[in-house]
């Protein structure tokens, strides 16, 4: 089954990217597979910083990491709820998932069940002066997806 992949981060506000992903899914009669990636690496880095630089005890450090994780999951769920609402309005079949790991792992999880025809990746908008000399760049791992990757600045 074909799917359009929309990769998001917790706390992101998918506007244009969501719209584009829905359009692509509708055009190709595909499922919209929206995944929010909780980058485990960031939590590891935060834990390292708390312990090594802040000299915070293990218990307090674990507590705060768990709270940050819960906060990110809550934000991810809010984002995906908005995606489901928008997909329902557009009449597009949707599957959502929160994934802990790296973005390419989310792609891998999606590709075990769907044939990914198109991927939409929201990227941070460039500053006005950057637009003169820099193109919006897809992350390096996007090359491995084996499908069209469309970056949308938000």
């Amino acid at each position, binding site marked *: 089954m074909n799917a359009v992949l929309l990769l998001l981060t917790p706390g992101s506000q998918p506007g244009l990217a969501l719209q584009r992903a829905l359009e692509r899914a509708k055009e190709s009669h595909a499922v919209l597979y929206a995944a929010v990636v*909780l980058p485990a690496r960031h939590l590891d880095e935060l834990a390292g910083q708390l312990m090594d*630089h802040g000299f915070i005890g293990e218990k*307090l450090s674990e507590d705060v990491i768990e709270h940050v994780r819960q906060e990110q999951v809550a934000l991810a769920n809010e984002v995906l709820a908005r995606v489901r609402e928008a997909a329902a309005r557009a009449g597009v079949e949707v599957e959502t998932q929160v994934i802990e790991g790296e973005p390419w792992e989310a792609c891998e999880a999606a590709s075990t069940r769907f044939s990914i025809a198109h991927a939409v990746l929201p990227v941070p908008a460039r500053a006005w002066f950057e637009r003169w000399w820099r193109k919006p760049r897809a992350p390096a791992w996007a090359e491995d997806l084996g499908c069209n990757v469309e970056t949308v600045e938000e």
Partner: protein
Amino acid sequence: MQAGNMDIASPASSARKPRYVVDTRPLWRILLPGVFHALLWCLAAGMYWWAISTPPPAGLSEAGQRALAIFAICVLFWVLSVLPLMVTSLLAIVLIPLSGVMSASQAYSLFGNEALFFILGAFILAACLMKSGLSTRIALAILHRFGRTPHSLLFSVLLLNVVMAFFMSEHAVAAMNFPIIAEMTQVLRLTPRRSNYGKALFLAMAWGSTIGGIATLLGGARAPLAIGILRETTGKSFTFFEWSQAIFPLVVVLTGVAYVLLRWFFPVDINDVRAADEVLRERRLRLGKPRYQERAIATVMLATLAAWILLGEEFGLANVALVSVVVLFLLRLVHWKEIEGYVNWGVLVMYGGAICLGSALSKSGAAGWLAHATIRDWATNSSAVIWLLSLLALVLTEAMSNSAVVAMLLPMSLGIAGEFGLDPRVIALTVAVPAGLATTLPIGTPANAIAFSSGYLSLRDLLLPGATLAFIAWVAFNLMAWWYWPWLGLHIGGGG
């Protein structure tokens, strides 16, 4: 239409099909991360070999040259995080006797420094506050009492973090208050990355704990570390009260400036915070009435604080701290196992090593030589030394651990104090205070990192407001040093 349910998946546990990825990056980019640490180790070994095999330059003893080589290795490792900070300190302790800069017994005896035992006592006392739930109760009470409107809630969050960091580690304050603020932002339905109020609340938490952390010797271990190095190298010191007296005006000014900047950069975009107030009320109800344990710990803490201020000079700060710890155990208010999880014992190794390194640099004459060869060329008078050192500490702390900044800059800076007729205690303040004011980058201090991980702030939200606060802090610090410190007998005027 919804085809699937939402759950959290860990790819490691999900079924995978074989995956082969061809890395198309240039070869040097693929190999560099793998060999980077090896290159740094080679560089460190090369520096050390060079130091022991070449004759020292004029004015520097052989022991001094070796101490400098060890110092350079530690700086390299601290800045680039080649090893955990405390392990780098261990390396220093091993290299100092091995190089013949000091005897092994001298080097290891520096672990008996009073500053280390003060840090140990202060961390255990703070652990008791957290473990008993007393600190959370105080936070909830203050926020519930004063945070009735969006503006007053924002100011309460800022002030709460400032005041709590007077009594316990600033990093622990941010870590402890994060869940409360995260819950408030959720019930207020603030939109991540877009809500100004959400951004302001998390920044108030980070900035508040950072600003409060410089006020007393309890806010962060870098102040006791600075005093430890100061005492070990010059014999001079600060009492608990003297330190706070010298810094307090800056804390008051920065708290006001931080509030103004938060409102300036993030104009309040909500009208009602009743939902947050309700959460605070519910949390307070869940805690119930203060238990005997909390009341007793609060009494011991207040008595300790009074003893630090009134009797600290006579009995010693570390003695007061450790007596209080013993009293807590005598009254069975806390158990060792409970404390262990709240104290990071690596702090003792880190600071023990830093004090040892500072002492080695000073006693071998390397600190004075290095200061003469570097700062002397840039600074022409004592005021310029203060401007320059405070700026250096402030910039460095944005990119590396504040304790590492103190360990790196202070021994060298103390070396130049005599040359400009500066009181070494002024130098200790000039390095230790700005080193605690990392407000701009998430890597600067754990409080910033925690705020950034909330998902409400982008890097841009931290950069400009943080840099503005840091700049104002630098100017305010120097004005305070120039106008206020002489009233306290800390003179920065002097010859060039």
